[in-house]
């Protein structure tokens, strides 16, 4: 009876070949989605995804699972709107239950500047076809009655930008679903294989070197998060990226009380409740660069104090689990996607704190670029050379936390 519901094995184990049309470094959401769309939409199936740990072990499995499209610049709003729409039917498309749950996202303002910022954001979103409305304090209270509108007596809530499409989805399931769907179409996924170098001749990438020998490739995509600087060094290029840790934690399971996802730009935190009842609390990146994934007590203490200012009932909950992920931060808080100086070597990186919700759109666009050689217009603004051309896509206010 048990076997009716449980799979014995999730992923097929393939023998590593010595030549592929496309080699993707990094088995996170971005790498796996790119592999899936290459096979599903562009008929490119001789594809290998190389993952040095296990799939979804980096940012894909460490983020705080929020889906939203309420960004600030026209370029970014269009990109995340496309991604949100792909996520909306992803469970059916990949035949996998990802526990997607639409909650509505409140972005609180506790100060005059933030009030202006959130009103501007609502107007900007409406202009580009994204459903965000501005709420005054009474409407905020009606939308989320659990909020302490005095902000712990310190930071009264003055208003909010409300984004009804805001949703959460099970992040591991996204990685697994893409991996299994890609495998069904013939893509190979190799876990435990570390890329140690790139084969570059005359400015052209011809393959990768791994701890299990060299692999020739028509094209190589780095979909690496956290350690993308190592991969860039192998290609001899330097990126506008610094690596910061980001911490988050969950409380013990509690009765379902919090429907909404609540973020505060002034307090730099956000709170949501998972399907299991755990209250998930996250913040912005740690204030200095580091590759350390050690969780810290100062973070827990300061973040909890701010969370309790918003939701006093949290004070009686115990903390169950705390973790840390690495964020590749770009100067303008937008991703880096596309071609670089080395021919046949592509990069999808700089996913900072805005990567998980971008997985379907980024995967589809990078697959198109790999298959056709043409940069899709949706991702053209995020080209690697935009800083050289003075064309930054500034998103700090809307991408800085989750």
């Amino acid at each position: 009876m048990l076997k009716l519901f449980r799979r014995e094995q999730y992923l097929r184990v393939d023998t590593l070949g010595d030549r592929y049309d496309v080699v993707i470094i990094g088995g996170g959401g971005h790498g796996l989605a790119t592999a899936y769309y290459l096979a599903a939409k562009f008929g490119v199936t001789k594809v290998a995804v190389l993952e040095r740990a296990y799939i979804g072990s980096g940012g894909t499995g460490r983020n705080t699972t929020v889906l939203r499209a309420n960004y600030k610049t026209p370029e970014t709003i269009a990109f995340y709107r496309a991604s949100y729409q792909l996520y909306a039917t992803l469970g059916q498309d990949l035949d996998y239950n990802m526990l997607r749950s639409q909650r509505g996202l409140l972005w609180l303002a506790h100060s005059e500047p933030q009030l202006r910022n959130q009103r501007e954001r609502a107007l900007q979103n409406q202009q580009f076809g994204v459903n965000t409305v501005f709420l005054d304090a009474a409407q905020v209270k009606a939308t989320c009655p659990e909020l302490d509108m005095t902000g712990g007596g310190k930071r009264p809530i003055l208003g909010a930008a409300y984004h009804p499409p805001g949703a959460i989805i099970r992040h591991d399931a996204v990685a697994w679903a893409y991996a299994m769907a890609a495998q069904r179409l013939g893509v190979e996924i190799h876990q435990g294989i570390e890329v140690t170098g790139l084969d570059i001749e005359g400015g052209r990438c011809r393959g990768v070197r791994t701890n299990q020998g060299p692999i020739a490739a028509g094209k190589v995509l780095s979909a690496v998060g956290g350690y993308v600087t190592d991969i860039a060094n192998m290609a001899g290029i330097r990126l506008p990226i610094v690596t910061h840790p980001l911490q988050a934690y969950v409380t013990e399971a509690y009765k379902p009380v919090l429907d909404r996802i609540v973020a505060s730009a002034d307090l730099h935190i956000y709170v949501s409740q998972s399907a299991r009842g755990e209250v998930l609390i996250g913040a912005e990146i740690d204030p200095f660069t580091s590759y350390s994934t050690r969780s810290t007590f100062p973070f827990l203490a300061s973040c909890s104090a701010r969370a309790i200012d918003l939701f006093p009932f949290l004070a009686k909950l115990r903390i169950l689990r705390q973790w840390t992920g690495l964020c590749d931060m770009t100067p303008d808080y937008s991703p880096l996607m596309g071609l670089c100086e080395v021919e046949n070597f592509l990069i999808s990186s700089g996913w900072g704190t805005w990567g998980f919700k971008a997985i379907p759109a980024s995967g589809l666009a990078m697959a198109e670029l790999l298959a056709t050689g043409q940069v899709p217009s949706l991702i053209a603004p995020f080209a690697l050379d935009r800083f050289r051309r003075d064309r930054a896509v500034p998103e700090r206010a809307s991408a800085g936390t989750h």
Partner: protein
Amino acid sequence: MALMIPCPHCGRRPYGEFWASGELPEGGHGVEADVEADYRRVWLRRNVAGDQRERWFHHAGCRRWLTLTRNTITNAIHDVV
């Protein structure tokens, strides 16, 4: 335990008293730098996993700039001036 930074003027202080301003840029800069060198200094980073020479400002203490070496994997700090 918070990351403690050994300030030569104030002693060991928690990192919250400081602003991190990131890795020291390579080479000089100024009006004589060419556009390419300027672009690399302003936008590109080595982002080393290991020992990194960097600048911190002690805003809640002596309000002086420190230069130190921090291991970005372990956060161990040495050679503070």
